[in-house]
């Protein structure tokens, strides 16, 4: 009964480094999402996907890339990490049909120094 699993849970990067945040779900959901959560700012959508091979930008996509090769996995790539990308990143999924709630993972806490 895993739901949405995110790895790693914590990571410290140096400015200019790259990394991939992993997200996998076992609920066979078509839709997947990446959010960032900053203190006092609420959740902001970075990218989302409506199915394998289909992705689209959210509210704050700059500095990030995504891919969706399978229904289960939706990795988020950070290229040339910047201090402004220090945040907590959440992955979520939903069935995508009708008004269905999104189910969230427990997040990746990323610090860029």
């Amino acid at each position, binding site marked *: 009964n895993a739901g949405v699993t995110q790895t790693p849970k914590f990571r410290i990067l140096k400015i200019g480094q790259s990394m991939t945040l992993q997200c996998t779900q076992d609920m066979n959901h078509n839709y997947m999402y990446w959010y960032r959560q900053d203190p*006092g700012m609420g959740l*902001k*959508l970075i990218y989302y996907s409506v199915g394998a091979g289909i992705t689209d930008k959210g509210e704050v996509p700059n500095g990030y890339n995504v891919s969706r090769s399978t229904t289960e996995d939706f990795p988020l790539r950070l290229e040339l990490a910047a201090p402004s990308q220090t945040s907590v990143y*959440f992955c979520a999924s939903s069935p995508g049909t009708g008004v269905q*709630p999104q189910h*969230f993972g427990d*997040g990746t806490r990323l610090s860029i120094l």
Partner: protein
Amino acid sequence: EDQVTQSPEALRLQEGESSSLNCSYTVSGLRGLFWYRQDPGKGPEFLFTLYSAGEEKEKERLKATLTKKESFLHITAPKPEDSATYLCAVLITGANSKLTFGKGITLSVRP
């Protein structure tokens, strides 16, 4: 511009002291309003979906209501384990399942 505003930012209650959390929204068309609970170091956990004005849903000590402009999350006789951040989010017509979140309300319940 579509907006979701939650108030107050933080709320401290004594155990057993009932209160309400507010989520007001200004959107072009509402398909649904969601309430989530978020514990420190965890992801948001789904609580309720409300679809139309006048609708109410209950779960244990929590009751969510919806009008055309706002939603309330009523907490009756809260316990310390109800301490968490409560998030409100709206799904807007034409938004293709993309949610717009409020900033959240941090609730602390003292024993």
